[in-house]
């Protein structure tokens, strides 16, 4: 505990660096996966190929991938972009199948009804298919988030600052408290990210909750509604 109290600044600094390293791959991975998943579903023949090939990317060991990134991207050896891009690849590998399954899980009757109502293809995607696959997409995103936060630690091996530094340094100098605080910090980030995602789901997908009990807000709306116009 002594080590922690005297190195709080370092842990905090590394935590922020770790978050900065993890967030872009999660976001970009998600944004890439949804259209790729959509394309995979669109053309039945390509579905198998796309999903298997992208899924296999996850089996590439992370350390070699981090090391090879500068060769592929032409980036400097110590650039954090190497790790970001590699983590994005893993995020896509994890997310694409979920995205494809999520989009395919939308009730065909509902899609048919949407077309019959006069949604154009584009409107139908944004207003019906995407929101209705939301719960599945969110479940996939939570897995991607946890995976990315944990993988980002390996970045420290190739010299990109993250909480992984505490593992390496702690092992080398035999300071167990340092290693443990690294683990705890990584876990905390993963848990906080997960909670934020659950909260995001609550806000954006209110219809998917099991049963709505009359919240104060909905009660207020109902009163306003019964009194006359719709707010």
């Amino acid at each position, binding site marked *: 505990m002594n080590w922690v109290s005297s190195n709080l600044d370092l842990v905090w600094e590394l935590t922020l660096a770790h978050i900065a390293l993890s967030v872009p791959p999660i976001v970009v991975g998600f944004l890439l996966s949804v259209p790729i998943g959509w394309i995979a579903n669109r053309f039945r023949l390509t579905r198998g190929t796309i999903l298997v090939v992208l899924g296999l990317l996850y089996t590439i060991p992370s350390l070699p991938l981090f090391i090879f990134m500068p060769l592929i991207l032409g980036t400097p050896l110590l650039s954090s972009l190497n790790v970001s891009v590699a983590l994005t690849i893993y995020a896509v590998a994890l997310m694409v199948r979920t995205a494809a399954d999520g989009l395919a899980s939308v009730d065909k009757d509902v899609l*048919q009804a949407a077309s019959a109502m006069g949604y154009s293809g584009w409107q139908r995607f944004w207003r019906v298919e995407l929101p209705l696959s939301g719960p599945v997409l969110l479940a996939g995103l939570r897995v991607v988030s946890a995976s990315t936060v944990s993988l980002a630690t390996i970045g420290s091996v190739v010299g990109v600052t993250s909480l992984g530094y505490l593992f390496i340094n702690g092992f080398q100098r035999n300071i167990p408290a340092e290693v443990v605080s690294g683990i705890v910090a990584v876990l905390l980030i993963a848990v906080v990210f997960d909670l934020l995602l659950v909260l995001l789901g609550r806000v954006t997908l209110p219809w998917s909750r099991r049963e709505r009990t009359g919240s104060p807000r*909905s009660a207020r709306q109902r009163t306003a509604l019964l009194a006359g116009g*719709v707010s």
Partner: protein
Amino acid sequence: MIEFRSVTKQFPDGTVAVDSFDLVIPPRKTTVLVGSSGCGKTTLLRMINRMIDPSSGSILIDGEDTGSLEPVKLRRRIGYVMQNSGLMPHRKVIDNVATVPILSGVPKKKARDDAMALLDTVGLDRSLALKYPRQLSGGQQQRVGVARGLAADPNILLMDEPFGAVDPIVRAELQQETIRLQDGLGKTVVFVTHDIDEAFLLGHQVVILQKGGHIAQVGTPAEILAHPANDFVASFVGADRGKRALRIQRVGDRDVVVDENGTPTGVLQP
């Protein structure tokens, strides 16, 4: 008026669902397409709003060839009610009803106010407006489906077996409601069902279909009952099973109507 002119639909797998079909659907009346599964009735219905495009032939609405119209715009001005309601599970009841007006650019506030009034029209309590579809019973969902079909105030309302999945009591209720609505609003309703009793109840014009969209008979329910065109029609409407052959039996001082099996079906009013 909707007019089918030698419409044929062959699906990519080679099935001919409809073969040179001709029919005139009169305005402001209910026309029921009735037949067993595979007779092409749903295909016919979906060709009206171009959910399905005919392989050949044309469909005219008030003299205008639908083939020359933009499908999305066409669909927005034709109401559509389907089996299992097809409501958007992620939109509240009120927003489901307001779907088409909002798509057509009506301001959200006005669309929602209008949708509220429509809930009254279809006999739904306004307190359901902010619920999600799955919080409603099957019958209530179906009413929301009807309200949604009416929201853009279309001249034409297409109904694809809308009451197929609700229990008999609720179905009878919804059928009466449909008759009441049609009387009041005077829409051109095209209704698809496999239930001949439903067809006779709702239809001003009934079209009995055989496999491949061949018309076995077109007429008012009374015409069809009085003169079934062939054995198929007679069997389909139940005339061959004695269900429609009624006779009068004197019971005390009342005339009771019984069918061929002797089952009483009603009392003749003086």
